[in-house]
């Protein structure tokens, strides 16, 4: 269960394991999996619960496969995120 103010979801099957997101994460929260995806690449994943939703990983990701979420500023809950 995450406690951080941000979160990312990576489409790991399309990841090519270039590691640029891992380098780019200012929180050092990402890592390269020891598992491989359907294309044979080790894939990046969020390893530490310290995401701030800064979008750096998504911006540098060549494959454009990282969705970035950030906590709403107001505390009132809106409708669920439709993209899930």
């Amino acid at each position, binding site marked *: 269960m995450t406690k951080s103010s941000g979160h990312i979801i990576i489409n790991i099957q399309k990841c090519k394991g270039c590691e640029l997101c891992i380098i780019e994460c200012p929180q050092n929260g990402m890592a390269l*999996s020891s598992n491989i995806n359907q294309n044979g690449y080790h894939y990046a994943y969020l*390893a530490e619960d310290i995401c701030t*939703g800064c979008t750096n990983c998504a911006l*540098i990701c060549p494959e454009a496969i990282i969705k970035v*979420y950030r906590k709403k500023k107001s505390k009132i*809950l809106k409708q669920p995120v439709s993209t899930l």
Partner: protein
Amino acid sequence: MSISQEGIHCNYLNEMDLVWDRPDTFTDTTLHYCPGCGHSVINRLIMESVQELNIEEKTIGVAPVGCSVFAYHYMFIDMQEAAHGRASAVATGIKRILPDRIVFSYQGDGDLAAIGTAETIHTVNRGENILMLFINNGIYGMTGGQMSPTTLKGSITSTSPDGRDYNQHGYPLDITKIIAQMPGSAYVTRQSVDSANAVRKTKKAMMKSLKYQMDGGRGVCFIEIVSNCPSGWKMTPTESNEWLRNEIFNHYELGDIKQLPKLKTNEI
């Protein structure tokens, strides 16, 4: 979209805002570029900009020959694929026939600065109202890593096995600086996509150029993006970006070379 089963999970995503996602104008097709290639980011950035400006219905892109020959597989807009070196001539033909459309060309260094030098210079010289994207990674990636006109001194490529020697091969061509001197260019900048901040700056330059064209600006907006080629340079993606920062940017300095003129209202 499959979701990672590994690492941190979040059970209250519905309490969060989706703040970044792949743009709709960038198709779901898996990119053919090598891992870590800057082309992927640049392909996406131009589509992000087109989407944000809401001009996907009036934008026509021209794809080159080279690694981004398949750019039209990823860009969900009308596109033409030009012969090697001729993207700016093709873009000229489109823009002249449809002056109210937004037109951009996308070329690499071999395409724009070697075989297409004449078309490049003269498109700028005519002051065509288009955006020219110039991806400079100092190598012919698609054909297997040969020396290009922008390859730096000493660089080992498949056609300069002992490193580029100025006596034999001549000097790296800084075509962007030449273009900045020409009255037909409106905005000339050199950017990169090697970090998230660089990506933000490059997108800003694209947005600025497209807006200028939408406002009926006069002249070419020219964005050089100094980028990597991990496969061609025989480096990991991370190493290639470090190489950019430690070596290449010393020669190809980043930043605006020619500022965008302020449009007078009567010109619009």
